[in-house]
């Protein structure tokens, strides 16, 4: 092994390693601060130039300075050297610097190992099908580089083919391990702060503009598959966080006391139950976005006093949940006075005109329902517009909205409606979540996107409990019936794909999303629960890690055996004449005469005649046939005769008597 240390790196092997550095570190430029991208790119170009010019690699001192400078810069940029992003930045820096001191094959091996590690880090940012394919190609490149390093110069195509063959043979192992390796649901220890940054979804407060940003994203929030039929589209309210505290600008959820948080809501179902499975994208919050209102919840989740389903831990990875929900229900007919009291609170001294209007309605109406109807008829009959680009509102936001701009979208309407109700003495609160969804005919999944994010209101009516009121539906009924794209006038900013009218494009998108969904369900969503489910479907009763490991070992052993046989199997390439002659000679060896490797057939026959006169005739005959076949004009007849000679040898036991 001492040999490896001193083995210098061939000049012609360097491009392979530079390609490794480029393929593994290059795509990370997207996530790195600009100065790092420039530094890493500059180092790479410098190294390429050094290779072209056959220049001397930099000495140790400037390299050490570069490493120290880079590490300091990363520490300054990310305020830490640990954690996901800083770790990736460090790895990329090392990948850019290691080729600068690549003198021996050992250094080159370090580069390849670093490359393998860097491949993993790409999955922090994306686990889509294209990423998977790209990384498969990169793995082939890294493996080909190993072959180049150890096998010397060969045509690139030959190296690539061999690397492909090795990976192809590794695939069965991957499948077995993927299926059977006992999965542990992470994390093994506390993750750094930035582990889940960049996950989008509903926020735990509703500030102006927070929903409109979300609505402009075409990303998928969750996918749902109903066990039987679907509810009406206008019934599809997916419930997220409920807000009952307003500070004049932002709606928030009230901090609940421990006893209040324990209160179980009471639900009376008056209609049909729907059972469905939802595959929720990670959004780093606890709410599960069940169809309003869930009656049966998955394990490890609970129903909050404000009726939303909550997971015990924030959803940090795509996960599947099965619910039963009812769309016709009465909730919390007997609400605690404290909650109702809270649902009437408003910040003092703002929006005087709105308050005045509410008080006027209250004096004219006999019941809360009439106040609600008055508000809805105002939205419906007066000139209110639905737009994602509302004008900015001033200090008295509700006054400005209701009496001046009259332009806005769900968050404006919901928040104005709740303000009006509270001012008129009707307990009310804001609910956010998603509304609607799109059925993908390819796989039957209902897709709900971030662009389906929605805000609506709930008022509490004696005898009926909390009742949903969607003021947006009064302004733009198509928002609820057909979706956001139909409700918005053209020219509004919206994710491009949410407003496709062209049929074939829509069909293509549906197909692509169905493939993606399969990928998410089966590849990315393969967690401990899914593993248990799959294994019990494959006939494992009670799969535990012991039986899984045992099966894993057995299957891997069998695969290794099959692959070894495939790899090592060798057809006898000797021609039939040679084989027949060898057989004859083997027969003679058992009878005591061994042909030396260099002995020609006729010479050997002469020697046999001398040593074993009893075998002389037969050997002479066989040698003659073989000589004719090999060096003369022997045909298939000779071959047959030669094969017969081996059979005609006297059996060995007779020799002894």
């Amino acid at each position, binding site marked *: 092994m001492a040999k*490896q240390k001193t083995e210098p790196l061939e000049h012609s092997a360097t491009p392979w390693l530079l390609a490794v550095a480029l393929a593994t570190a290059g795509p990370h430029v997207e996530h790195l601060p600009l100065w790092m991208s420039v530094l890493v790119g500059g180092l790479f170009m410098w190294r390429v130039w050094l290779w072209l010019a056959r220049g001397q690699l930099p000495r140790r001192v400037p390299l050490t300075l570069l490493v120290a400078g880079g590490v300091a810069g990363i520490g300054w940029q990310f305020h830490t050297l640990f954690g996901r992003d800083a770790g990736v930045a460090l790895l990329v820096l090392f990948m850019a610097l290691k080729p600068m001191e690549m003198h021996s094959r050992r250094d080159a091996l370090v580069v390849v190992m670093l490359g393998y590690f860097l491949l*993993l880090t790409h999955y922090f940012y994306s686990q889509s099908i294209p990423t998977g394919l790209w990384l498969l190609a990169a793995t082939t490149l890294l493996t080909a580089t190993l072959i180049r390093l150890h096998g*010397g110069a060969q045509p690139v195509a030959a190296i690539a083919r061999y690397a492909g063959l090795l990976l192809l043979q*590794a695939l069965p192992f991957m499948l077995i*391990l993927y299926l059977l390796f006992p999965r542990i649901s*992470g994390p093994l220890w506390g993750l750094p702060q930035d582990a889940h940054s960049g996950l989008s979804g509903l926020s735990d407060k509703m500030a102006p503009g927070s929903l409109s940003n979300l609505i402009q994203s075409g990303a998928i929030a969750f996918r749902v598959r109903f066990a039987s039929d679907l509810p009406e589209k206008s019934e599809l309210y997916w419930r997220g966080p409920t807000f009952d505290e307003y500070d004049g600008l932002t709606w928030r959820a009230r901090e609940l006391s421990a006893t209040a948080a324990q209160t179980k809501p009471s639900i009376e179902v008056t209609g049909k139950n729907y059972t469905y499975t939802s595959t929720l994208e990670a959004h780093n919050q606890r709410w599960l976005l069940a169809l309003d209102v869930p009656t049966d919840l998955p394990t490890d989740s609970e129903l909050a006093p404000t009726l939303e389903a909550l997971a015990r831990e924030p959803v940090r990875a795509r996960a599947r949940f099965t619910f039963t929900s009812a769309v016709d229900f009465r909730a919390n007919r007997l609400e605690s006075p404290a909650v109702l009291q809270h649902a009437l609170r408003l910040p003092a001294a703002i929006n005087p005109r709105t308050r005045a209007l509410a008080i006027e309605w209250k004096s004219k109406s006999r019941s809360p329902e009439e106040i609600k109807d008055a508000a809805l008829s105002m939205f419906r009959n007066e000139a209110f517009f639905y737009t994602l680009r509302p004008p900015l509102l001033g200090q008295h936001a509700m006054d400005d909205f209701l009496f001046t701009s009259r332009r806005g979208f769900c968050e404006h309407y919901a928040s104005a409606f709740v303000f009006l109700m509270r001012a008129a003495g009707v307990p009310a609160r804001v609910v956010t979540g998603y509304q609607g969804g799109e059925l993908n005919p390819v796989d039957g999944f209902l897709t709900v996107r971030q662009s389906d994010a929605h805000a609506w209101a709930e008022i509490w009516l004696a005898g009926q409990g909390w009742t949903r009121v969607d003021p947006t539906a009064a302004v733009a009924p198509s928002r609820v019936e057909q979706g956001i794209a139909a409700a918005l006038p053209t020219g509004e900013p919206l994710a491009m794909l949410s407003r496709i009218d062209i049929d074939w494009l829509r069909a293509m998108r549906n197909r692509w999303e169905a493939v993606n969904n399969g990928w998410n369900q089966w590849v990315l969503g393969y967690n401990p629960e899914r593993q248990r489910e799959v294994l019990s479907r494959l006939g494992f009763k009670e799969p535990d890690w012991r039986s899984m490991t045992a099966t894993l070992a057995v299957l891997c052993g069998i695969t290794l055996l099959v692959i070894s046989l495939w790899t090592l199997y060798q057809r006898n390439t000797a021609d039939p004449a040679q084989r027949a002659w060898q057989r004859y000679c083997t027969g003679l060896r058992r009878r005591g005469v061994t042909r030396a490797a260099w002995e020609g057939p006729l010479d050997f026959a002469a020697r046999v005649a001398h040593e074993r006169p009893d075998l002389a005739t037969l050997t002479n005959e066989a040698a003659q046939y073989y000589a004719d076949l090999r060096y003369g004009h022997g045909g298939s007849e000779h071959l047959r005769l030669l094969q017969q000679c081996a059979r005609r040898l006297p059996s060995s036991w007779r020799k002894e008597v």
Partner: protein
Amino acid sequence: MRPLPWLLQRLFRIGRAEQLPIVLTQRRIFIIPTRAGLLFAVVLLVMLIGAINYNLSLGHALVFLLAGLGIVGMVHAFRNLVTLRLTPGRTEPVFAGEIARFPVHLENSRKQARRALDFRFGKQAGVSLNIPAEGLAIAAIPFATRVRGRLDPGHITLSTRYPLGLFHAWSYPHLPLFCLVYPRPLATPLPPPSPAAHTGHQRGDSGQEDFTGLRLRQPSDPTRHIAWKAVARDFSNRPLLIKQFAGGAAEELWLDWALTSADGNTETRLSILAGWVLAAEEMQALYGLRLPDREIDMAQGNAHRDACLEALALYGEAKD
């Protein structure tokens, strides 16, 4: 046969081959991970922990694919050696201190080339080569000689890391190889022609009477034979020349053990004799070799020279 060598021979085919050619079989091939292979395993372990910790499904897949790659790499390193056929070739004799090259004929019956095979004796420097698919090659394995005699280089260490460098596969084929190592020749002046060979000539002046020509100087030539005049004529272009004399018995030499100085040890005396043999052959003299236990008659030519050198190489060794 003692029990341990017998066991090794039975189990791993270690020891001298009983049958030629040697075909490398699984019993002759050993395989362990290299340092790079261990590094690879550590990297995979860290990657697996990362994949679990961050719940990366594709990360799991990548780690498992690479683990499979490691296993497959082991099978392929093994394939690079298995069923290789080795046959010993004829080794040319060398002088002590030179590098002997042991040719081994290699036959690859596979449809794939075998690459980066290292051949080496013990701790000696090795040679690395590729064998084309279904092809032949000859490995000339070097061995730096130090002492004269019959050199048995021991078993060959045949190893490879191809294709991935994660595994080191090796084998110890023990071919019946040997090399004759002549004593390191020492250049000293030739002894005077033997008076015993041809009576009637006086010792001291024979072979120095009739000038026949000039030849290039050898280091062992006496300085008094240098043709100073010829050198002086064209000093800048001419190497040192020696005057050659023809004198009947002058070309008949007995290179006798007894003529070498008795205070040198055996090896030095053999080296002096070897130098004399080379010088005598160079002069195209008739010469014979006389050792305490052996005598080779007067003769001339390369075969005679080689016979003399062999006798010197094997001096004192039991004949076999």
